[in-house]
């Protein structure tokens, strides 16, 4: 093994590690006074790491040339696509954080450092070529996330969110590890290639149990039903910039990971896991849609919306074709823009004193006080519901198309039917902010950084986003081909 080549392949991760360590020193010397500087430096580091991905993505590099450290790590186009999304999500969540925390006088120098390390963990996760790499990356991401959830340590809800996330995350890790140990025991290898080769013939019961446990552990991380219970509580309790982070980057990473494991490692045993994924997909869509209906807290509503969206993404995975994987990646990209945009819009809902407004009933008629913000939120909600002229429709369209072409017409039909239920609560929010009698609660001004992130995400989900489809589809196709080398 050539270490120099390996280190060249992990350049984005090295940049992130360096950024994290240097920022930690800056934080130690300057304390909490220089948090703005640290935040912008962290964004810069993430951006730099993202720039290093461009050659991989542009040339669609796949195969042995991209594997580092004896195939422990894969810097292929698939990982590159997911990493680009992760870094963008992390930058978005960093940019909006200072203005939110400054009001509470709770901006900590550790916040950007932890976000950088969480992104490092996610980028290791999506590049995994070995079960141990998978677990190590997952745990690096989760540990940073537990702390981020409870970073407002004097706030009861934030502490509760952190504790809940920690306990359930530890349980999920246990389930995942148990599955991995079963797989190792029955295949004699931890590398993806080794496991895939060992299970390619007759599937033993032990290995089947391994597959089920690994998928269940990962389903916790993407919060697919029936492993979704923690999501609304954690998203509601965590500070809003942190919820925005949880709903975007770690979701992308975990979905990318579950797809890599399912298609690459268990690719020869599609029949063994397809029914599990189909159940997860349909249950997530239905529970996500029904659970959101009674919610008054907008953050809980968005949590159910993210459960709902994960279901649609899993439909692409259930197709188990290169087209399905590519559709999934396109959907992830659109989902990230919608989700980040909606959480930033929620961040900007403030009353006259600047205190955050989270209940939907107090948002009534806010179009009179905050016309621009209301229209952005209106379009974001319609896009999440998948109403045609907006870009959110395209994501659902490609996913259903992939399912239909894989002869899963029933699944696609059920998915479409359930998305109509989902549209109900998005439209309810639209009705409340646009047509209800004004309560005059949401009047607070917002920071320029919030407007910038909201503006960019709104542009992406607007019909202008369709200009991106050719290049996005091309990149996603190249990336998805990395998963189907062995077939």
């Amino acid at each position, binding site marked *: *093994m050539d270490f120099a080549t*390996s280190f060249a392949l*992990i350049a984005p991760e090295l940049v992130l*590690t360096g950024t*994290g360590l240097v920022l*930690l020193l800056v934080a130690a010397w300057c304390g909490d006074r220089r948090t703005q500087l640290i935040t912008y430096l962290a964004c810069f580091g993430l951006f730099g790491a993202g720039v290093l991905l461009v050659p991989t993505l542009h040339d669609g590099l796949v195969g042995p040339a991209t594997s*580092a*450290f*004896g195939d*422990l*790590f894969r810097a292929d186009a698939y990982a590159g696509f997911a990493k680009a999304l992760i870094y963008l999500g992390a930058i978005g969540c960093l940019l909006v954080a200072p203005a939110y925390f400054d009001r509470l006088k709770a901006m*900590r120098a*550790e916040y950007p*450092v*932890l976000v950088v*390390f969480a992104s*490092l*963990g996610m980028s*290791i996760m999506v590049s995994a070529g070995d079960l*141990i*790499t998978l677990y*190590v*990356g997952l*745990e*690096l991401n989760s*540990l*940073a996330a*537990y*702390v981020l959830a*409870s*970073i407002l*340590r004097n706030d009861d809800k934030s502490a509760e969110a952190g504790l809940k996330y920690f306990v359930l995350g530890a349980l999920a890790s246990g389930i995942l590890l148990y599955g991995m140990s079963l797989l190792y*025991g029955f295949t*004699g*290898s*931890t*590398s993806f290639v*080794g496991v895939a080769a060992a299970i390619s013939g007759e599937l033993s019961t032990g290995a089947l149990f391994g597959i089920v446990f690994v998928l269940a552990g990962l389903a916790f991380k993407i919060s697919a039903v029936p492993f979704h219970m923690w999501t609304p509580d954690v998203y509601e309790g965590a500070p809003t910039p942190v919820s925005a982070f949880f709903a975007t980057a770690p979701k992308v990473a975990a979905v990318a990971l579950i797809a890599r494991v399912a298609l690459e490692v268990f690719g020869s045993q599609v029949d063994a896991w397809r029914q599990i994924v189909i159940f997860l997909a349909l249950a997530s869509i239905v529970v996500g849609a029904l659970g959101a209906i009674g919610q008054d807290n907008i953050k809980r509503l968005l949590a159910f919306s993210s459960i709902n969206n994960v279901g649609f993404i899993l439909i692409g995975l259930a197709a188990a074709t290169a087209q399905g994987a590519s559709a999934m990646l396109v959907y992830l990209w659109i989902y990230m823009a919608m989700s980040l945009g909606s959480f930033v819009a929620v961040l900007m809902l403030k009353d006259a004193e600047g205190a955050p407004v989270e209940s939907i009933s107090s948002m009534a008629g806010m179009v009179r006080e905050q016309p621009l913000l209301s229209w952005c939120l209106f379009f974001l909600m319609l896009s999440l519901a998948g109403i045609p002229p907006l870009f959110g429709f395209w994501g659902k369209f490609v996913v259903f198309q992939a399912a239909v072409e894989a002869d899963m017409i029933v699944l696609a039909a059920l998915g479409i039917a359930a998305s109509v239920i989902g549209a109900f609560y998005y439209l309810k929010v639209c009705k409340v902010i646009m047509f209800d009698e004004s309560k005059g609660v949401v009047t607070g001004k917002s920071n320029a950084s919030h407007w910038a992130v909201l503006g960019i995400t709104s542009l992406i989900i607007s019909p202008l986003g369709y200009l991106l489809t050719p290049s996005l589809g091309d990149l996603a196709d190249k990336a998805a081909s990395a998963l189907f080398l062995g077939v």
Partner: protein
Amino acid sequence: MIQTLSFYLFAGLMIASALLVITARNPVHSVLWLILAFFNAAGLMVLAGAEFIAMLLVIVYVGAVAVLFLFVVMMLNIDFAAMRAGFVKNFPLGLLIALILFLELFVGLVATNAGGIDLGKPDSSAAQPLGASNIEAIGALLYGRYIFLFEVAGIILLVAMIGAIALTHRQRPDGTRARQDIGKQIRRRPEDATIMKQPEVGQGVEL
């Protein structure tokens, strides 16, 4: 025969004590059961021929858990008088555990001498180099093949440390952090800190 028997002995005791860890009401008892579970895991490792890992388990886990045990006792505000009152009642149980641990030593030794246990065939890609001892083989894998994961594990520990400090390090009410000011300490003169008194015979000092 003895290998199989001792395998089931260690494995069975480990699962039983692991169950007791989570069912015991007294946290101190839980920790004790945890130590028993670790000892049994070490026994399994010895059976598999991984004596270095077995020693690590005993030294690191049991050693570290003993410290954890102390923290639990200090932090949970346990009534020591009530604990001592149960000493006579719990003495037979403690004696039983001690006896089991002692017996396991012998069983493990006899079983290893009888040839250890064969736990499946090793993965060829990670097979230990011929003639290398346990420690050498682990070292070669850890700092060669798995160096990347080893480094990432280091970052995980760093994140855990940042997290622990970020969540527990509090500011004082006056807004300052508890911080050592070396300059101030050196500037301090003996006259500022000490007073010379000449007390009368038979009388105390009034400060």
